[in-house]
């Protein structure tokens, strides 16, 4: 039980793929110019991640070691195609917004990375929790970046006006430089908080000794 909890929780903060591991960054930057884009991208990635991790964990014994990477990629690509067709049919607006970054989930390092590092070694149950943790990690990371950029770039959040009407939107936030700068700042903030926590932890430990 403890395993499941730690597998799940680590993806949210300690090993957050976006802020700590710094992988899967292209969509993080590209589609987070509003909160909805970030959220839907996060959910899409999480969806593929969970399915592929589960699947890979299930079939890991059937795949010969030599060809495992191509096999994983094909597997992931399949799920991505399914997702793509689904979105195209039912959520065309979001499909259009995500553009080529939806098919590019195939090469998102998070998914292959989890497949290699975790799902191919661990039992199915743990893989699912790991994928869930990572998935939620991506979702909150992308959504929060999306919210920040949308809030300052347009004064809205998820399309609703939040800022007073006198607020002049800061165009940079929704443009490319804003994406990099927001992510850089977010990474620095997360690093700062983590360092503080680690320091506190170390101090607490020393005091008890």
């Amino acid at each position, binding site marked *: 039980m403890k395993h499941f909890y730690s597998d799940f929780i680590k993806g949210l903060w300690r090993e957050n793929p976006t802020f700590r591991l710094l992988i899967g960054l*292209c969509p993080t930057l590209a589609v987070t110019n509003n909160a909805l884009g970030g959220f839907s991208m996060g959910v899409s990635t999480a969806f593929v991640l969970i399915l592929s991790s589960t699947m890979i964990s299930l079939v890991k014994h059937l795949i010969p070691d030599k060809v495992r990477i191509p096999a994983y*990629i094909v597997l992931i690509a399949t799920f991505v195609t399914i997702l793509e067709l689904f979105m195209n049919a039912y959520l065309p607006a979001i499909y259009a917004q995500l553009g080529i970054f939806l098919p590019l989930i195939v090469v998102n390092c998070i998914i292959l990375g989890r497949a290699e590092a975790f799902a191919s070694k661990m039992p199915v149950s743990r893989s699912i929790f790991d994928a869930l943790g990572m998935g939620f990690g991506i979702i909150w990371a992308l959504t929060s970046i999306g919210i920040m950029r949308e809030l300052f770039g347009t004064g809205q959040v998820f399309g609703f006006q939040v800022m007073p009407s006198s607020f002049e939107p800061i165009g940079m936030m929704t443009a490319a430089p804003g994406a990099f700068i927001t992510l850089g700042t977010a990474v*620095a903030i997360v690093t700062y908080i983590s360092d503080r926590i680690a320091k506190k932890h170390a101090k607490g430990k020393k005091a008890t000794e």
Partner: protein
Amino acid sequence: MNFFFLFLSAILVNNFVLVQFLGICPFIGVSKQIETSIGMGLATTFVMVVASAATWLVQHFILEPFNLPFLQNVAFILVIASMVQLVEMFLRKTSPNLYNAMGIYLPLITTNCAILGMALILVLRSYAFGESLVYGLGAGLGFTLALVLMAGIREELKFADIPKPFQGAGIAFILAGLLSLAFSGFAGLV
């Protein structure tokens, strides 16, 4: 002239890294030293040109005649993965130094979304074969340019007193943001 503008557009105006957000992972990861970044950039450029040709052929001779657009992702990634594997083996044999310098990033070219992204863009814009090659070359060189500029500045940053939380990835993103800001001057150029 058309080719020239296409080429320029791929390098400067629609720079893959700084404007289109493709290939960010290696951009942040391999841009610490000028030598490595040149190597990485050129390897990526090479793969891009080869992959643009290969995916174009696959698209026009397999996927389109047999009406299989839904297999695009799978087919492209297969082709690209094999291409990268070839380059990797080739480099390992011919230039062990370069191979060592690239370290873990060479296999990562497979999962470099810049390559798959380029293949998808080529299909999206229905470029002809020649255009595809030029676009692939331009995109690769644009990637290299961004990488090398970044590496040059990051080598200097070793001597700067950067705030602790920003050291490493944080300042790299800020730097990329400022580079992107500088490149925004090319908007609407072509």
